[in-house]
């Protein structure tokens, strides 16, 4: 039923749509009149934080976006980088945090659906998925339920599409107990000439809707994503969307088929805010206007109002701008794939977004007002006091722990939720379909071959919320550095990043401080490592009952291997190979898994990051990759050196699953084994190559330390004449592999 304008004004109904009074006044000024209910709804969704980036735009502008490889930067549905040979890669990450908290399976499934359509809109064939997940500790039932539901949802949707999920990351921490996070990334491949734009170009061209019918699903989903989950959220919960991966699969094939016909001049996915945002965005990008008739939209529910239709977030739909007179080409393709299709309007030249219901105009607003004229806020940033109260974890105390059983600690760590094997997750994902997965999940980055070339593409997604909580600037930078390190460890050269920034309520100065600092760190790291930002996504208001999530910037990075034969993997290859540590950055226990699991300390000061050292390390490894002198390569991350070495052993080839390593130095054994730090990579090489490894490292100014040798099946770490750890690798592998399955059964 239509809400009358008098009632809107009298009852301040914009507040119910999440608009502030000042925002309502701004709308009035832009229109020169009162908006009607449908118009107000349209503004409320496009000016929501999710679509409008009201609180983040200013900070994001500081990120570097230019670079040699960049073909399309931020602003389109996804960024595009050049691979050479006329090929291009497009990729993007998006969050679906609020939906998974309500319905984990469908929330995650529709998250995949959404990100895949972004990639599809660029004209690319989607080729791979990654997922970055955060849950509360698995000891509690609710996080277990969300975790298993999310993994099943990603599997259920992604597997059905025939897209391999090739990587991701998964953390369990109290900081996510009430705010689980689900960020998903999709990567697509295309030829340069196929790059599409989301533009409503060509006055008179037709606006067509392809895919599913439209129902009342998810009305106001993006407004909802821009609010904290509070006591009364259940009532405000929009109808949960149910994904239909079968229709999405048909949509992919139909769009790619249309791509070859040249009748489509613009493509836009329909995600948040459905028809409203897709029409407004395409018109505003092209500088045109658009008019549509809601009675032409194929519906699946009765009695839908223009408001419902404009705001519906029904899944599996795409908006196409089609050359006038060529609609039948689209109709034929739609028929072949069994999809709904309708011509709902046309492109105009007056800059207005006009909505008809039959012959009656039900909304008429400047397209740009919706997309470009949302208010921009410069929130107050204030350093939260907790940061000044952090103390380094008393290393003296740790050093005095000479009587610790290091083997027992190692086993505890290996079996703990954050370090244990992720196999339970990725074995539910079809990670091999499309037969391009050369390095499957379980390595540092995943590597996909590009059929018909000798190239490989490396992809990784990384972030560390606990570090970012303890040091926002370094946390933001470290996410980029870790992603780069992971790519480099497979032999890939990092090209560019996309990001997903998961934070609490930005209107709180402490939260905005975390955000601004993390973005600053991310920008500095991108400049230092030569990886521009091609786009991203911001997810604010990850709070429930006033408690914010760990600030969690997630970085999705792509890299290029010119010669896939030169790729490197984590596992040791031959007993007798020499194990070398490259890089010697500062280590600390603050924020480490050891501090958390063994010392029960959540705070502390995390390790510092030296971006120059990081860049040098990456260059050194890439140089060694070219020279083909390495047998294996793995970065040292969560869990420290002992855990990294164990992982190389677990993944070792038969007869090369052990290590014999000597540690020494000015830190005590627990720190040497388990302290975490950035800019460290463990490599192994055949004995005759060691000198060259050392020399090439030194040329780049990277510290090198020979740690020991690959052994056949025993894992031992010595300290002078003391044995710190000595165990059959099989036994360690068992702890590591059984970690998650045990917690989940």
């Amino acid at each position: 039923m239509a809400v009358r304008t008098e009632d809107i004004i009298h009852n301040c109904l914009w507040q119910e749509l999440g608009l502030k009074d000042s925002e309502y006044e701004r709308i009035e000024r832009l229109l020169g009149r009162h908006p009607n209910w449908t118009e107000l709804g349209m503004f409320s969704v496009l000016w929501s934080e999710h679509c409008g980036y009201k609180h983040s735009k200013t900070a994001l502008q500081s990120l570097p976006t230019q670079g040699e490889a960049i073909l399309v930067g931020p602003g389109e549905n996804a960024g595009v980088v050049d691979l050479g040979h006329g090929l291009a890669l497009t990729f993007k990450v998006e969050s679906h945090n609020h939906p998974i908290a309500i319905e984990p399976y469908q929330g995650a499934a529709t998250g995949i659906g959404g990100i895949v359509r972004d990639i599809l809109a660029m004209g690319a064939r989607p080729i791979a998925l990654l997922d970055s997940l955060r849950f509360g500790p698995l000891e509690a039932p609710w996080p277990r339920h969300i975790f298993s539901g999310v993994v099943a949802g990603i599997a259920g949707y992604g597997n059905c599409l025939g897209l391999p999920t090739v990587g991701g990351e998964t953390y369990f921490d109290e900081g996510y107990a009430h705010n689980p996070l689900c960020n998903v990334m999709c990567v697509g491949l295309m030829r340069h000439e196929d790059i599409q734009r989301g533009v409503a170009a060509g006055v008179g061209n037709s606006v067509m809707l392809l895919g599913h019918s439209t129902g009342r699903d998810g009305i106001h989903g993006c407004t909802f994503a821009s609010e904290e989950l509070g006591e009364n959220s259940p009532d405000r919960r929009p109808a949960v969307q149910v994904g239909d991966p079968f229709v999405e699969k048909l949509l992919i094939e139909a769009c790619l088929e249309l791509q070859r016909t040249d009748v489509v001049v613009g493509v836009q996915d329909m995600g948040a805010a459905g028809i409203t945002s897709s029409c407004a965005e395409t018109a505003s990008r092209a500088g045109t206007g658009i008019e549509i008739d809601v009675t032409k939209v194929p519906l699946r529910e009765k009695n839908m109002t223009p408001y419902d239709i404009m705001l519906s977030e029904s899944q599996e739909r795409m908006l196409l701008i089609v050359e006038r007179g060529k609609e039948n080409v689209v109709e034929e393709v739609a028929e072949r794939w069994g999809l709904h299709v309708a011509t709902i309007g046309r492109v105009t030249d007056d800059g207005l977004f006009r909505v008809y219901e039959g012959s009656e105009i039900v909304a008429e607003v400047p397209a740009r007002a919706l997309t470009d004229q949302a208010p921009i806020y410069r929130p107050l940033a204030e350093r939260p006091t907790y940061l000044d109260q952090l103390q380094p974890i008393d290393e003296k105390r740790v050093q005095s722990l000479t009587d610790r059983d290091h083997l027992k600690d190692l086993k505890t760590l290996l079996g703990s939720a954050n370090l244990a094997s992720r196999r339970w997750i990725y074995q539910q994902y079809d990670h091999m379909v499309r037969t391009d997965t050369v390095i499957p999940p379980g390595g540092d980055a995943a590597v996909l071959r590009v059929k018909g070339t000798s190239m490989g593409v490396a992809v990784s997604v990384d972030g560390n919320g606990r570090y970012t909580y303890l040091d926002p600037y370094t946390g933001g930078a470290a996410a980029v550095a870790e992603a780069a390190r992971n790519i480099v460890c497979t032999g890939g050269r990092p090209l560019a990043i996309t990001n997903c920034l998961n934070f609490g309520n930005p209107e709180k100065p402490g939260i905005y401080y975390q955000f601004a600092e993390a973005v600053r760190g991310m920008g500095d790291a991108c400049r230092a490592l030569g990886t521009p930002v091609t786009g991203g996504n911001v997810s604010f208001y990850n709070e429930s009952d006033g408690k914010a999530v760990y600030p969690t910037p997630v970085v999705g990075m792509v890299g290029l291997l010119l010669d896939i034969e030169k790729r490197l993997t984590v596992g040791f290859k031959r007993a007798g190979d020499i194990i070398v540590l490259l890089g010697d950055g500062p280590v600390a226990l603050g924020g480490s898994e050891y501090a958390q699991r063994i010392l029960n300390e959540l705070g502390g000061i995390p390790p510092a990051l030296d971006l120059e050292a990081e860049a040098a390390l990456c260059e050194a490894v890439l140089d060694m990759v070219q020279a083909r002198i390495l047998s294996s390569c793995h970065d040292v991350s969560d869990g420290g050196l002992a855990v990294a070495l164990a992982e190389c052993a677990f993944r070792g080839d038969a007869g090369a699953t052990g290590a014999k390593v000597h540690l020494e130095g000015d830190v005590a054994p627990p720190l040497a084994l388990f302290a975490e730090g950035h800019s460290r990579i463990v490599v192994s090489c055949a004995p005759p190559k060691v000198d060259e490894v050392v020399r090439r490292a030194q040329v780049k100014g990277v510290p090198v330390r020979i740690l020991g040798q690959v052994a056949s099946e025993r894992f031992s770490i010595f300290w002078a004449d003391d044995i710190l750890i000595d165990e059959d690798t099989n036994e360690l592998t068992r702890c590591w592999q059984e970690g998650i399955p045990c917690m989940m059964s």
Partner: protein
Amino acid sequence: MVEYRALIKVMLKPTVLDPQGVAVRNSLLTMGYEAVKSVRVGKHLELTLEANSENGAYCLAQELCDELLANPVVEEYHIELAPAGEEKGGT
């Protein structure tokens, strides 16, 4: 304590899209079954319960649905009780 059989039907709420139902209906249409106007697909569960009374069994079944068997966000359920009768294959 008496044994009861609870027959529980769990369906997606009418406003929620049911992709399975749509796909089944479409294929029935192409098979020529135009008399089929709509299809919805849900779950059917059969539980054997011990309870003091029929009412007790019903309340228990309801609790189970709320707790685990149905997802209140997207599904609705309906419970029917029957005498335990012939065991129809145990689990």
